[in-house]
């Protein structure tokens, strides 16, 4: 039960691959900062193939003009709750 924070953009392939290789079905992947660009339509299909539940940080998507239809978003308070619900947090930048 791990919360993974993906903050690297899709152009950073190695970060995504390393992150993906550690995801389990019990985990949650939270997109934030440049990681939000994974929510762009072009990248959605790849995102849909990962085993973990995927959510995005709403304000970070909003700031970058990224539409989040079809993707669950969380605000800062919900981010904190997510962190407390998981046993540990791992950052991927």
């Amino acid at each position, binding site marked *: 039960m*791990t919360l993974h924070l993906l903050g690297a953009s899709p152009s950073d392939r*190695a*970060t995504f691959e*390393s992150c993906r*290789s*550690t*995801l*389990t079905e019990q985990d949650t992947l939270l997109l934030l900062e440049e990681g939000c660009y994974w929510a762009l339509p072009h990248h959605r299909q790849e995102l849909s193939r990962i085993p973990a539940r995927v959510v995005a940080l709403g304000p970070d998507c909003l700031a970058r003009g990224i539409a989040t239809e079809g993707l669950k978003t969380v605000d800062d308070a919900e981010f904190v709750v997510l962190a407390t619900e998981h046993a*540990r947090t*791992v950052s991927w930048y």
Partner: protein
Amino acid sequence: MSKSVLVICRSAPYRSSAARDALDMALSCAVFELPVSLLLLDDAVLQLLPGQQSGAIGEKSVNAMLGALPMYDIDRIYTSLASLAAHGLEAESLDPSPEVLDADELKQLIDGHEVVLTL
């Protein structure tokens, strides 16, 4: 019962201070007697290349410092099969030689630690 700490580093040795910071963090945890492991992923596996003469660029050798980990009772350095493959490296040719994990073992490693710090 002290918390087990996994320090993950993903940076090549002299790219930024990340490699040194990860090492410092691991050493500090060890001094406070926390059980600590170090996971070198992606470019961080390049920290293990032997023969680093970092004096040539006026830096201390990250590789030499990694050699001190056993003196701090940090006996576990891990990397992944994928990280080795990405650079065409084999564990036996690296120093210190890491324990190599496949994808499942990587998940188990993370799952087995209470705190994960990434640099």
